[in-house]
């Protein structure tokens, strides 16, 4: 006899009341997943809930059971469609029933201090955000979660305190992961608690645990079932276990809002070492090139999610280097750049395109050129010279001295050399084994000192960023070992770190090093002070300084991230670094690969569905020889996506992974995700038929989404789609078209291409008819709006790209024909077919003002090259010409005509509500548009073949 649903409801109420009572002092919120039920019990409840639903009985008495039921679906959520799987497992669930879910969860939140979804992701999914948030760590995020912990294991092990929010922030800042996972990590307090629980942090008293023990065990068991996650989790636990042993949880775990980001930056974020290394590279014929080697900013990114995101998305400029560095450059493996101009000392060595308060502050104070006006570089055996910030020269060594002032007077140590850098001069300095008093004075005048006679160097393990004289870098996992050697009698060394207590170590014989091991150091910069306690004989070298310093910069180790080539000889650049799968598919991603000539690189594209199953795994063409330019990649990928099988594969893909294999040079992979907006069209291939279905997760009340369809053959004719039909799925008829949906601020559009339009090759294309323009049904502004939809839409299906372009060209031609007239349209058409023909060019000119003011068209034709420069100036030139030839006296209309003539698909973005009025003015004075079109056609033709070639749209920047 099964337990009645009422009893289950009562049991759940008792359970959550008890949990809420115990947890009330801790401030931890409660998750519906903390229900404490076994799988069999969950099945029994689910079965009874479904029975009641089928029977049409009231649902609200068992609201808590429904909360648990919905949360379980949230736990099993694959990241794709919540409602689809919910409705499949819940027969008789009606679309309108969705609105019940949110009030039940709100009730839960109020009654038991339940967690409340927050952040942009939750704001855009007002209903499903509840069950998914209450699922704590849905299964589809578990693998990424374990991987993120594994990548951060060293950093977790060295956190100063175990505050959940701080741990969560660390995780969020380091998530090189999917968009959704990054969004999940925005719940810093929650993720921090999960981390503490998973890694075995000391659990508090009963009720003070962040997550109900049984629920946590369930998540851990599930996590361990996920591929590799078990190993990652165990390894992370091993690394951090010492840290967690015998340590309290830091601050009391009282829930509080995350501090304001600006406040956090100002007061809480540390200031990691970001001082670049300056070096000179010998380029032959006594000439040197200045190179800057920027530090890895991953340590900076790890401090804060906002900073990490800023670094990934913002380009930067080096003080003294030409051009800008791409977004994410400071996080990449290769961060060297040539400086053609000596850096301006008044500014930091690096600046970002956009301001960021924390980074600006950091760069202002930490990322500067060392003090001039003289800079010293010691020449290594391979012709690379490293800066010696301490200005110390050593007998027997060679240097390059860079100076902003004049070169010194002639001296036996100095010889001429040149430096390929504006603003400074250089000379070579060869210090002999013996340096006399006169020479020492000469060096002092230059601001240089002869080295001390006590040498220090990293012993055993080679030093990281060791400059040979006093600066070195260490990791928190290391215990520095240093060697000390003197060439004169020294009795003992007095050593202290950061001016703390002194420790005396007996010195050995001259010429024999002693070795010292330091204990582990915390993150930051430390100063080791070494004082020589002299014997009487030491008085002979009175010039030796009594104490020396060694700067030890200590940082966390950076984890190795698979798929990211760091130091290998293959450099892959992707711009933008966070492109969506659609953007990648439309070949809008700039990709280049640099490396040794003669080596080949292969590209493999993997497409996966949301559940991780592979849809496609194919080589993108033949291996390509290095270096690979963006143009070469674009051509190869363009051919790849045109293949029919490949094109269809995209339909059901959620994730694309491009693996770039350089064999021994390494392997790099990039992940592209389909954006999953709350309102979206999804596509499925059902036995050769394409079915398009509208998914609405906006959770907005009121009328359903507005949806429409534009056929490729009639691309301006709007067909309405019933909301229910869209939700159920529409079979796309050949040749396909544009599906558009909008609800409130959310919208989505996709062009679906399917089937042939006729037999033979002709059937590959489409023949759009656009005769609605200017009719009562369609004002002039409307085609521009629809044209913009065709431009912005995602593309899906075979030949979608070329067919969509055909549609766009047809609309553009029809719009211009409607305003400029049929004579003009014929003239443009003739010019498109044969742009080199003198007749075609003459005809175009003749049609601009219908035989009046022919000089206007002649000047435009002759001087059309002016349009390729600054648009503002070109626009003024055009307006002046129009005024002079009495074609138009309104400069604003002239500018509009030029913009419209070059980009009718973007004009709505600029003119918005004024578009209708401006088009009306243009229709009343079409000659000014024809003049603009003449310029546009000539410029487009000269800019070479492009996807907009058929409609003759130039690439003017305005």
């Amino acid at each position, binding site marked *: 006899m099964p337990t009645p649903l009422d009893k289950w409801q009562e049991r759940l109420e008792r359970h959550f009341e008890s949990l809420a009572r115990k947890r009330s002092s801790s401030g931890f919120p409660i998750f519906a997943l903390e229900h404490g039920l076994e799988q069999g019990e969950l099945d029994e409840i689910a079965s009874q809930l479904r029975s009641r639903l089928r029977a049409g009985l009231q649902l609200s008495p068992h609201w808590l059971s429904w909360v648990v039921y919905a949360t379980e679906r949230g736990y099993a959520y694959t990241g794709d469609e919540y409602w689809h799987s919910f409705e499949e497992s819940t027969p008789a669930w009606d679309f309108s029933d969705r609105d019940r879910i949110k009030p039940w969860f709100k009730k839960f939140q109020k009654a038991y201090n339940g967690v409340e979804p927050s952040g942009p992701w939750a704001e855009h999914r007002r209903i499903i955000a509840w069950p998914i948030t209450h699922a704590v760590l849905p299964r589809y995020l578990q693998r990424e979660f374990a991987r993120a912990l594994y990548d951060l294991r060293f950093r977790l092990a060295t956190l100063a305190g175990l505050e959940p929010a701080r741990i969560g922030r660390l995780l969020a800042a380091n998530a090189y992961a999917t968009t959704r996972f990054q969004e999940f990590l925005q719940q810093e307090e929650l993720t921090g608690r999960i981390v503490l629980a998973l890694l075995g942090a000391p659990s508090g008293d009963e009720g003070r645990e962040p997550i109900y023990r049984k629920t946590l065990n369930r998540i851990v068991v599930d996590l361990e079932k996920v591929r*590799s996650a078990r190993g*990652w989790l*165990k*390894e992370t636990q091993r690394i951090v276990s010492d840290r967690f042993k015998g340590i309290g949880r830091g601050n009391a775990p009282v829930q509080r809002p995350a501090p304001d980001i600006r406040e956090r930056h100002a007061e809480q974020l540390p200031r990691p070492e970001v001082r670049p290394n300056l070096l000179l*590279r*010998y*380029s032959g014929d006594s000439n040197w090139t200045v*190179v800057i080697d920027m530090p890895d900013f991953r340590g900076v990114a790890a401090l804060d999610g906002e900073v990490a995101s800023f670094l990934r998305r913002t380009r930067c400029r080096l003080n003294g280097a030409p051009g800008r560095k791409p977004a994410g450059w400071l996080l990449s493996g*290769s961060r*060297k*750049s*040539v400086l053609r101009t000596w850096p301006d000392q008044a500014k930091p060595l690096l600046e970002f395109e956009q301001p960021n308060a924390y980074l600006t502050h950091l760069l202002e104070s930490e990322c500067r050129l060392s003090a001039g006006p003289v800079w010293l570089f010691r020449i*290594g*055996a*391979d*012709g690379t010279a490293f800066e010696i910030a301490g200005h110390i020269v050593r007998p027997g060594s060679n240097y390059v001295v860079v100076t902003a002032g004049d070169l010194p007077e002639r001296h036996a140590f100095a010889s001429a050399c040149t430096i390929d850098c504006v603003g400074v001069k250089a000379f070579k300095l060869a210090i002999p084994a013996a340096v006399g008093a006169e020479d020492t004075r000469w060096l002092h005048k230059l601001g240089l000192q002869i080295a001390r006679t006590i040498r220090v*160097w*990293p*012993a*055993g*393990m*080679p030093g*990281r*960023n060791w400059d040979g004289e006093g600066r070195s870098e260490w990791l928190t996992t290391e215990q520095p*070992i240093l060697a000390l*050697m003197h060439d004169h009698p020294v009795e003992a060394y007095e*050593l*202290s770190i*950061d001016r*703390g*207590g002194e*420790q005396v*170590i007996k010195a050995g014989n001259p010429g*024999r090093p*002693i*070795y*010292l*091991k*330091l*204990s582990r150091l915390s993150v930051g910069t430390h100063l080791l002070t070494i004082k020589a306690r002299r014997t009487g004989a030491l008085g002979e070298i009175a010039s030796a300084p009594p104490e020396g310093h060694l700067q030890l910069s200590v940082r966390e180790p*950076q*984890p*190795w991230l*698979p798929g990211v080539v*760091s*130091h*290998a*000889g293959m450099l892959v650049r992707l711009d933008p670094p966070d492109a969506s799968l659609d953007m990648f598919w439309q070949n809008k991603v700039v990709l280049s690969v*640099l*490396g*040794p*000539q*003669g080596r080949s690189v292969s590209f493999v594209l993997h497409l996966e569905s949301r559940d991780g199953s592979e849809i496609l795994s194919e080589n993108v063409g033949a291996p390509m020889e*290095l*270096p690979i330019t963006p143009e070469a990649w674009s051509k190869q990928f363009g051919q790849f996506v045109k293949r029919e099988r490949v094109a269809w594969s995209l339909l059901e893909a959620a994730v694309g992974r491009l693996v770039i*294999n350089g*064999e021994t*040079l*390494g*392997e790099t992979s990039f992940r592209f995700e389909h954006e999953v907006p709350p309102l979206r069209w999804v596509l499925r291939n059902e036995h050769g038929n394409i079915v398009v279905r509208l998914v609405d997760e906006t959770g907005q009340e009121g009328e359903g989404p507005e949806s429409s369809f534009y056929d490729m053959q009639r691309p301006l004719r709007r067909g309405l789609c019933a909301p229910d039909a869209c939700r159920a799925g529409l079979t796309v008829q050949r040749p396909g078209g544009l599906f558009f949906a909008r609800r409130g601020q959310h919208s989505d559009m996709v062009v679906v291409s399917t089937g042939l339009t006729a037999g033979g090759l002709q059937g590959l294309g489409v023949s759009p008819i656009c005769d609605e323009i200017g009719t009562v049904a369609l004002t002039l502004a409307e085609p521009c709006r629809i044209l913009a939809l065709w431009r912005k839409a995602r593309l899906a299906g075979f030949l979608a790209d070329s067919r969509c372009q055909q549609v766009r060209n047809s609309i553009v031609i029809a719009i211009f024909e409607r305003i400029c007239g049929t004579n003009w349209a014929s003239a443009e058409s003739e010019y498109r077919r044969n742009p080199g023909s003198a007749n075609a060019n003459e005809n175009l000119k003749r049609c601009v003002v219908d035989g009046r003011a022919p000089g206007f068209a002649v000047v435009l034709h002759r001087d059309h090259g002016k349009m390729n420069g600054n648009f503002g100036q070109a626009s003024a030139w055009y307006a002046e010409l129009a005024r002079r030839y009495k074609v138009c006296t309104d400069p604003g209309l002239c500018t509009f005509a030029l913009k419209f003539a070059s980009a009718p698909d973007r004009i709505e973005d600029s003119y918005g509500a004024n578009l209708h009025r401006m088009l009306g003015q243009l229709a009343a004075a079409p000659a000014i548009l024809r003049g603009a079109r003449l310029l546009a056609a000539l410029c487009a033709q000269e800019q070479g073949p492009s996807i907009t070639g058929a409609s003759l749209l130039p690439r003017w920047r305005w």
Partner: protein
Amino acid sequence: MVITELRPDDVLADCRRALHLPAAARTLMDDGLLAALLRRSAGMRCPCSRAVLRASLVESLQGLSQDAKQLAERIEEIIDALIVAGDLLELSDVVTDDPGAKGTWVYAAPPGFVARPSGSIFLIGVVPDQDTFLPEGLASRVTHEGFTRLIARQPGEDLAAELHEQGLQELSEHVWLRCPKPESAQEMLAALEYRLASQPPSGAIGGLQILDSAQPVTYYRGRWTTPKRHSGNFVARRPQEFGASLWCFVTLQDGVATRLLDLPLKKFRWRGSDAAWHVQMALDRRFGHPQLYRRRAADDGVRLDFFSPLPLWAQRRLIIFGRPVPPEKCLMSYLLPSGEAKVEERFLQDRLWLSVADGSSERGAHANNP
């Protein structure tokens, strides 16, 4: 803050512990330690020149080795060994953001592995901040054979799949054993000499050192000399202002260079030294005194001894199918399982034009022939 004084041996023992190396059997500063230290240095400094890599280790081991000169030579040899083993990549003509930075640089190879026919895994690669890129469970199974790192497969285990999961890149046998196209010594020399002849006159080259083909093939170092009255085509090295001397193929007339062709040729994927050693093998074959190897039967296989360096692509075969062993009265030695020896000898004879030395044991070569 605690500062502890260490004895030199303690420093080395500390390094071994930090680098997860087993306690030393004979000497603390063995090949395994030097290789691990070089990997660590490469993780910090690469891309850089060999000289920088060597200098970093020479400095950190200063005072810890009895013979500084010998130490520098050993480090140089182990850099070569790590390049052969795939931990380091020596690349020429690398196109980077800075067109002026072309040259030959050493890069740290990304973590990867090669599956050996025996089922064990040959680990390669270096990462900047960690001495191991594997989780503890796998890292504790890594064994060190000289400069190489291996993991033995456990029964029923899919080790390759596990390493894939950890993000390591598998290099297929096809990639690992890639070598230049097969051709005869005469074909190779004809093509190269045609290119050399088409070079403009070089004029005299200061500091040139040549490999004298007239000298015995069994003493590699003894073959290097300063040109005297030599005439003909020679493998040579010419000094540059900074960095290691460059490999080249040169025409001499009475000891004076008249034409010069730098090695490697453009788009050749291996090192200049690999190209040069292969050319010398062809020259020795042409002159009728091919380079030799010695075959000796050993308890656990066949030992092959070499008297001249082998190109990287040939050494990689020997590492995968066998293992390096300490050389005895030769330049380098490898131990191969008896079953593999015959095929590898055929490869050495066909592709490197080597001959077996007189007095070599026959057992290994015919082990598979009843």
